[in-house]
């Protein structure tokens, strides 16, 4: 007698969301990215549809970052001095979209001005037709001061604006609504806080197909298990029909993994850590793969080799096996 495989029957599904707007839609994007739409847990092709593959974004900066691992700077070389060139190089590395983080200060140490922020974003939009995610420096007031003019200057592009958190969501959501953009709703690794922020954002009137949920994560060794489990729980809640968790999830394993000493530093570390570059790539890749399998829809990375390996993993995971 053949074995009957237990299948979960999920009443809900993740919302399908498209990033970026083409010329006919009021933007200038030559490529768009659609994420979400899952009707089952990650890659369980035998019981439900996963209509869209998870996508990879590459993180770039508005100018040369002064706190990045030398391994990253060596890889990207001089393009780190020019966001437009960096965006082109990112596109060449095979990513699906670009995530530009605006720095807190300019190369001279003065606060980044709204004009400079707009200029950097526009340069990236001109250099690459990929959809774009723009993050402020991550301080609520500064993010507001930079992201509002950016949103206005790029009206209709359907950018993802972040970081949209409990401290500044009103401003970010308002400008996203006024200018046809989306938001990256971030909460610190907590199912209920994520849900609450999504409710607050929805109550302001932002349509649900413009919300990306960012549950935050920790790198391998630095709290990944918390992010991993929060994502599994959020995805189950979504599939069980909780509409305020039915958003695609974005996570930033590149940022987290390259903050870790294991990736950042090559000297004065234990011998048992092995080769620096390969270890760093593993740190980023393993963090990303674990999060893919717990429900990530958008993975933001930093190193081109990690992009290659995570892309290969996504290819394999999206293949519907014969056995299923």
């Amino acid at each position: 007698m053949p074995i009957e495989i237990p299948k979960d029957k999920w009443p809900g599904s993740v919302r399908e969301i498209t990033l970026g707007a083409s010329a006919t839609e009021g933007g200038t994007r030559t490529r768009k990215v659609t994420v979400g739409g899952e009707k089952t847990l990650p890659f369980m092709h035998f019981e439900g549809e996963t209509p869209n593959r998870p996508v990879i974004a590459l993180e770039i900066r508005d100018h040369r970052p002064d706190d990045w691992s030398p391994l990253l700077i060596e890889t990207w070389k001089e393009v780190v001095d020019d966001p437009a060139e960096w965006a082109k190089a990112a596109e060449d590395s095979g990513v699906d979209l670009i995530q530009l983080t605006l720095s807190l200060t300019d190369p001279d140490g003065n606060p980044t001005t709204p004009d400079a922020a707009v200029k950097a974003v526009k340069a990236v939009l001109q250099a690459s037709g990929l959809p774009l995610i723009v993050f402020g420096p991550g301080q609520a007031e500064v993010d507001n001061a930079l992201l509002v003019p950016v949103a206005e200057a790029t009206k209709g592009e359907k950018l993802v604006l972040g970081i949209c958190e409990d401290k500044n969501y009103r401003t970010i959501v308002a400008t996203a609504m006024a200018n046809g953009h989306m938001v990256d709703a971030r909460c610190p690794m907590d199912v209920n806080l994520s849900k609450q922020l999504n409710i607050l954002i929805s109550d302001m009137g932002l349509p649900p197909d413009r919300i990306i949920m960012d549950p935050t994560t920790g790198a391998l060794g630095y709290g990944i298990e918390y992010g991993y489990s929060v994502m599994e729980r959020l995805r189950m809640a979504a599939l069980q029909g909780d509409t305020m968790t039915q958003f695609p999830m974005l996570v930033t394993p590149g940022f987290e993994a390259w903050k870790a000493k294991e990736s950042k530093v090559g000297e004065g570390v234990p011998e048992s850590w092995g080769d620096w570059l390969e270890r760093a790539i593993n740190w980023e890749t393993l963090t990303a793969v674990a999060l893919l399998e717990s429900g990530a829809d958008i993975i933001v990375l930093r190193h081109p080799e990690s992009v290659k390996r995570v892309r290969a993993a996504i290819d394999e995971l999206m293949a519907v096996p014969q056995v299923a």
Partner: protein
Amino acid sequence: MALSGIQIYKLLPQTNCKECGFPTCLAFAMKLAAKQVELSACPYVSDESKAKLAESAAPPIRLVTLKSNGYEVKAGNEVVLFRHEKTFYNKPGLFVRVDATSAVEEINALVAPADAYVTNYVGIDLKLDGFAVDASGSGGAVTPEKFAAAVSAVREVSHMPLVLISRDPAIVAAGLRAVDGEHPLIYAADAENWEAMAALAKQHQAALVVTAGTLDELAELTEKVKAKGVEDLVLDPSARDLSGSLILSTQIRRLALKKNFKALGYPLIAFPKTPAAAAQAIAKYAGFVVLDGFAPELAYPLLVLRQNIYTDPQKPIQVQPGLYEINNPSPSDPVLVTTNFSITYFSVANEVESSGLPAWLLVTDAEGMSVLTAWAAGKFDSERIAKAVKTFGVPEKTSRKQVVLPGHVAVLSGELEGELPGWEIRVGPREAVDIPKFMKQAL
């Protein structure tokens, strides 16, 4: 899966004889279901019912233990599909594949460093678990003698548990004889060789991997092998790609846990070919993982991932309260205060470390809570901080007479000045990420 009270009742004599101490068989069944009494309290239960009840009480995924001289690797006994539902218990054993066609010197050169490998993470020493001697290596056919020699070569430099890989019973038998008295794992019994492999496993008290192309065939084969008296089984559902192995591993785990399907209620073995596949095997249900080679730059992240995934979510790891030295501080370097919640500690320590500046990190006992949570719960107040300053010898080890509080608890600085007369209380940034800048500019 445990039986319900009604299901148990049907297996009892239903005579209400009261000899068990309960008024009715149903009442006794209910107590049994709640695991509050032992079945032995019933003098009249049939042997058949006893067997059924014992089976229902057995763990849904059998615990399989490999042993060698002084070492043990356990897999199985898992009870959930998702770690947040309870926890994962037995960390998958990480084995390094050894090509049996290699020369003895090559085997020594591979095995010795992997055997000695140890790396420290959060104060815990992490190690690999054993070796998998593979007769299907690149160097052509292996004779039983060559295989036994390879096994002995591994044993010359390592005492860790072994997996013996060959589909040829004669080769496996030679390997088993070379490690007589141990409990290794044989890979593998298939539709062709299972009788001979089962006999070997039984004779040598080895665990046995069963492999087949479909779950139906796999279940059929485990039943046949079990009927021959081998119970310590491990499953290889044969898929090698990420998608296929994720799906099959999940289906097997679901069948075992949700359906109590005994024929697949065994731990899994995985043979990942990429770091991504190894990560998946660790997170998604493998009990034994055979790595193609040994490289510290992969072993370290995999060991850390395993540690993270198998952390009990109900007991978040805490760090030991104390005065930590970062970047070799001298007595005149600054003292930063934080709590002993693992993530808080690692975020702060990591940022201080990456600043490149020497500092002392005073980790207070906040019962494993983060700064804000602990403050709200009264576990991180001026009294506790002052106590930590004294307990951990801050006045003796440092000379600055200054402590830096996390920005989130700036409100404590007045009180803390009262607790530590003559000390300067500084307020640092709220988020760990801003610490390097603060240290460079303000300290």
